[in-house]
């Protein structure tokens, strides 16, 4: 890079991010080799769910919150029923826990596969979208769509419908499926498991940009199972808290350039502990030992270690989580016996005094926290919902900052090393950087609709 271009400020912007859910924009300002600014603008309109929930019955929370997202509605239902059941001190039977886990497996399969094949894989293959990808790898795309459908089928059967399921209620389910409804899924699940093993081997041949994240990874950790519905909140830097203590350790803030809130760890004795990441990398790194032996073996076969700090490899981790979900789904479907007609599902007994319930489950994109303050007769007084995409906003911007710095240094070095050759134009370099940054955002499979469910309203009457 010559001296003239070092003085200029360049702005790289992507007006509308593609292959992410929801509406966002990227802005990077560069002066010479310095990155002056990186902003992930979320301009999805705010959707006011926390306000909508006020004065609604606690029984309505699972169905209302599931509308926050069309891709991960189960996650919202699971976090909300957990919070309400804790507020009501309700015990959940093993049969209900099993079925809820099966339902969550369906969502993980559907959501992860959708992201892997339709949104993320094109980056690795250097194609624009899944249509271009289908011309090169039609069978792989067909297999992935069939895999996704397997997840959708589980959600449809257990949830009542595939999008915004309606069968989940506080205490259990409105209707339990029969064995004859579940057993036919076994064939598809068996096929899906074999297909996912092969697809993982294909994904493992992709070229992964070298990038090693140095941040705190946060996820649920359970003593016995790979986390979905239960666990304590832990990190790879020693955090170990109960779900109800979440807000003592994490905080949200509004930033001017985004309609979604940013979530950070509260800085305490160590002021460096602020940004953190949730999602598949965090789950995998903290819970590798909870994967089945078969899935662990597949993970090692495709070159993953027992931990992972490269977010570009999240596509492999998602594949491993799909495989784990398929393994678990096969076991649960095989042992499922429909509860008898007189099976007791706990009736809701409203507390006479106000109470608070906290819930946290692992949405496909990461930790999803809910808190409800419940008043008399089960009315929701206040709701707090913190989705994974909000929690990842800071780390996404940090990744973009680091990747941009590395890119600028690399290009500068390349330019110095080839003085006789025509220097690649700044425009081409910026185009390469733009693609890399969009790719980096897609590592997190951001769900922008989830992130913008909230906005504070202040009314001033004159």
């Amino acid at each position: 890079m010559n001296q003239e271009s070092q003085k200029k400020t360049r702005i790289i912007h992507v007006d509308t991010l593609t292959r992410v859910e929801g509406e966002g924009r990227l802005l990077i300002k560069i002066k010479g080799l310095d990155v002056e600014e990186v902003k992930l603008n979320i301009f999805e309109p705010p959707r006011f769910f926390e306000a909508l929930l006020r004065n609604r019955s606690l029984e309505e929370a699972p169905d209302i919150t599931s509308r926050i997202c069309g891709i991960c509605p189960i996650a919202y239902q699971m976090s909300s029923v957990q919070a309400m059941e804790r507020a009501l001190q309700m015990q959940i039977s093993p049969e209900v826990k099993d079925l809820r886990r099966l339902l969550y497996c369906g969502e993980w399969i559907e959501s992860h596969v959708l992201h892997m094949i339709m949104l993320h894989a094109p980056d690795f293959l250097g194609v624009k979208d899944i249509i271009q990808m289908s011309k090169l790898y039609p069978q792989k795309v067909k297999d992935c769509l069939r895999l996704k459908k397997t997840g959708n089928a589980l959600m449809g059967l257990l949830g009542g419908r595939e999008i915004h399921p309606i069968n989940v209620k506080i205490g259990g389910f409105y209707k339990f499926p029969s064995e004859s409804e579940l057993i036919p899924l076994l064939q598809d699940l068996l096929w899906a498991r074999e297909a996912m093993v092969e697809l993982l081997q294909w994904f493992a041949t992709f070229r992964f940009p070298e990038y090693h994240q140095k941040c705190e990874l946060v996820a649920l950790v359970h003593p016995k199972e790979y986390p979905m519905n239960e666990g304590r909140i832990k990190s790879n830097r020693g955090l170990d808290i109960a779900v109800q203590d979440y807000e003592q350790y994490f905080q949200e803030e509004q930033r001017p350039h985004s309609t979604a809130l940013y979530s950070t760890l509260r800085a305490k004795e160590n002021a460096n502990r602020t940004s953190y990441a949730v999602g598949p990398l965090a789950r995998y790194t903290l819970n590798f030992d909870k994967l089945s032996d078969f899935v662990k073996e597949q993970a090692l076969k495709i070159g993953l270690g027992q931990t992972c700090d490269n977010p570009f490899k999240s596509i492999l981790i998602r594949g491993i989580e799909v495989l784990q979900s398929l393994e678990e789904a096969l076991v649960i479907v095989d042992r499922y016996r429909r509860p008898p007609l007189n099976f007791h599902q706990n009736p809701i007994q409203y507390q006479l005094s106000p109470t608070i319930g906290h819930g946290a489950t692992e949405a496909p994109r990461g930790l999803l926290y809910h808190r409800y303050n419940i008043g008399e007769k089960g009315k929701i007084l206040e709701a707090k919902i913190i989705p994974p995409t909000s929690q990842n906003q800071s780390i996404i911007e940090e990744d973009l900052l680091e990747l941009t710095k590395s890119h600028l240094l690399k290009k500068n070095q390349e330019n110095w090393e080839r003085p006789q050759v025509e220097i690649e134009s700044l425009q081409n370099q910026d185009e390469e950087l733009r693609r890399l940054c969009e790719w980096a955002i897609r590592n997190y499979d951001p769900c922008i609709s989830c992130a913008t469910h909230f906005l504070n309203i202040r009314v001033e009457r004159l």
Partner: protein
Amino acid sequence: MNSIMIIGIGQIYRSDDGIGLIVAERLRSLLGHREDICVLNYQGDLIHLMELWSGTSMVILIDSIQPQGRPGSIALFAAHERSLPTICWQTSTHSTGLSEVIELAKVLGNCPPALYVFGIEGKNFQIGDTLTSSVAKSSDVLISRIRQIIENGNRITHEQLTTTFS
């Protein structure tokens, strides 16, 4: 195997976006049970339409289209021959759009030999379950056209493709 599949798509709680579902529901009542015709309402992920119509020789989709200034007007597209116009079906950032699904189906060899899309221009896509009056009126015209197509042996002429009906 059905010789014709009619699928209404949309979102019933987004006002005019429910027109496809309403038309399909009315058609199902009018046609009654027939071995050769399947009429469906579909509100799921559009990417799975490919499996739904697999093996069907003719598919008619009914959907609302973006406002163009003439609410209630009807257009008919031969989607197996040409891409759907983006001015009518904008890509959604929240899910796979209809035009994208159809192009993907063509690449994967899953597109029916005859895939027609009726688009009814909407005006109001806000949350609600009421149709704009001109959109509601167009459903009668559309139902009449589809019944005519069926009675003519599932034939659609080139002239019908370029004609607006309301």
